[in-house]
């Protein structure tokens, strides 16, 4: 049976195609203004990439903030459920997930069957999310994709004390004015995200092994800062960004 999972996030839309427990293809595009259109486009793209006809898809599950805009889906689940399913598929031993997406971050605790035991989400605040990193990248005039590599060169991460994205941005601007090194400021930003996320992780009661998912998992600097802060190893899957879509496609198979 071939199934599809579509994850419409605040910044990117992701799609994954599954056949009999195997991942055939995955695709990421920007969500943009129209979530419904993004869902349609990422689905068409992933199908043409995999060379599969629409009619061959037995079931579709949608997830993410735009899950209800995917009208052609058979069912929708929250991204909490889908990230759990995705992580469990990628590594059945995983007991905790840290998901850092565009507009929110979550800590999800799994039981030994990969079912969600508990979860915590960030409050109405962009600090500790992908959006926060985007704002900082703009202030520092650095490509966001270079953040990770630059930050691990830092020997003395700057201190970012503000908990708010807006205030943190002005703090970063004053650090630039003081002449602090870019890589140190970036490392400081990563540490502030790690501090923010680790308090959330503390609330849910983290258990090892831990996997990080969501777009921010691509940033090695954040992963290192989190590992340091939590004092534990964090598994990064090459499919971290499409993990929600993978979970959705996986769940679609059991509809």
């Amino acid at each position, binding site marked *: 049976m071939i199934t599809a999972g579509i994850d419409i996030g605040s910044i990117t839309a992701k799609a994954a195609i599954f056949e009999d427990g195997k991942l055939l293809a995955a695709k990421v595009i920007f969500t943009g203004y129209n979530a419904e259109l993004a869902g349609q486009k990422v689905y068409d793209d992933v199908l043409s990439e995999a060379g599969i006809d629409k009619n061959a898809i037995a079931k579709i599950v949608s997830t993410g903030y735009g899950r209800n805009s995917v009208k052609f889906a058979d069912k929708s689940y*929250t*991204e909490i459920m889908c990230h759990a399913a995705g992580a469990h598929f990628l590594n059945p031993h995983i007991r905790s997930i840290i998901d850092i997406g565009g507009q929110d971050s979550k800590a999800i605790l799994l039981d030994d069957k990969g079912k969600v035991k*508990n*979860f915590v*989400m960030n*409050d*109405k605040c962009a600090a500790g999310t992908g959006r926060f990193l985007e704002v900082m990248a703009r202030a520092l005039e650095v490509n966001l994709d270079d953040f990770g590599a630059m930050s691990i060169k830092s020997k003395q991460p700057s201190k970012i004390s503000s908990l708010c994205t807006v205030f943190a941005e002005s703090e970063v601007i004053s650090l630039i004015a003081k002449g602090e090194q870019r890589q140190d400021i970036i490392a400081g930003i990563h540490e502030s995200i790690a501090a923010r996320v680790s308090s959330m992780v503390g609330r849910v009661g983290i258990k090892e092994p831990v996997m990080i998912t969501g777009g921010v998992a691509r940033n090695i600097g954040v992963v290192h800062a989190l590992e340091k802060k939590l004092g534990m190893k964090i598994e990064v899957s090459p499919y971290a960004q499409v993990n929600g879509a993978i979970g959705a496609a996986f769940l679609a198979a059991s509809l």
Partner: protein
Amino acid sequence: MKKQILEFLKTILIFSFGKFKKFTLHFKKTKTMKDMMIVYYSEAKSARLTGKKVAWITSGGPVEPLIAMGIIPIYPENYGAMIGASKMGGGLCEKAEAMGYSSDLCSYARADIACATINGGPLQGLPKPDMLVCCNNICGTVLKWYEVQARYFNVPLFILDTPICHTEYTPEIARYVRSQFDEYFAFLESACKRKFNYDRLNEVLLRSFRTQVLWQEILDTATNKPSPMTAFDAFFHMALIVTLRGTSEVIDYYTALLATMKDRVTRGIGAVPNEKYRLLWDNIPIWHRMKWLSQKFASHNACLVADTYTSAWCGTLKYVSGDNPIYSLAEVYTRIYLNIGVDEMAKMIIAMIDKYDVDGLVLHSNRSCKPYSFGQLDIQRIVEQERGIPCLMIEADMADERSFSESQISTRIDAFMEIIKERKETSKK
């Protein structure tokens, strides 16, 4: 002339209460409630004409002595709920913030302080007070809030200080609070310039306690499956136990409401058409999102069968002494839900989880209400340890609609319900 003014007031009030129709879900009795509230506010608004006095009082404050003295009690917090439900909270809070009050302050306080300075708000504003009665058994904010209003209206303020009973009600606390009740009666004597009527107070208290018994019985009908009512219904019907307990009309109203509920139970009618999951709500309602939340949970076949908020108005019945009701007043008002330690609160929540047989706990982390929200993380942990049921935390505000993020809360509720559904299915297997 007097009659004309009264008629005019009635028109305004009928118009204002029309907005509350959306909560009148399925009870024939609610029309009576609307009428009663209209009469109540009309009387209060015309107090100057009828020579009656108006006292503003905190929601957890002892109202019975006011009723015994023929003083009309007005509740700025009840009004705050109205402001929230009419979605006027954000605007009024903004006004208070422009006046210099911090956005971290309670939204009821901000809205009330702002509303007093304008000719607006629901019901075109509250009737002006002749005196203020502030009891800090619900929070510390009320002290400063009432001081601000006492200065603004230039009226006397009585403060009843009820120390927090972290673990027990000590003899020292008892003596201290009891002596303040004597001062309270003396305060009312001087405000009304007549002797305090103790016999009348005894009568009012007996009626008040009877109302509380009735209210508890109404809430207890939710132990039935399906539940004939939801917490959203309780949030609506609670207006009378807050404002007019101790009067005979309220006894009649709740007697009829109880009969309606019992009838629904007999006929197996549930408040949520296909009740599959039962939940418990903690904290003050999100007044500006009642309809949305009630539909959201109902769409998951989930019924919020009970809550810690409406039950707070009958939670201290166990401390009532039938022989000497006046003597019980101090203990009844000191040991209320918000004035006890977190461990005690957790015990009460666990007792409710068992009593109403719920599948999950929804905690509203209310930005406004610090004493209510402060211990919630500990309570959540204790509940998870003791009963192992899923808990959901929703960050919002009771009256300030600016603190509500719909898509985030929607996702949280959906995910919470996914966990509950999966657990229930697994446990069936």
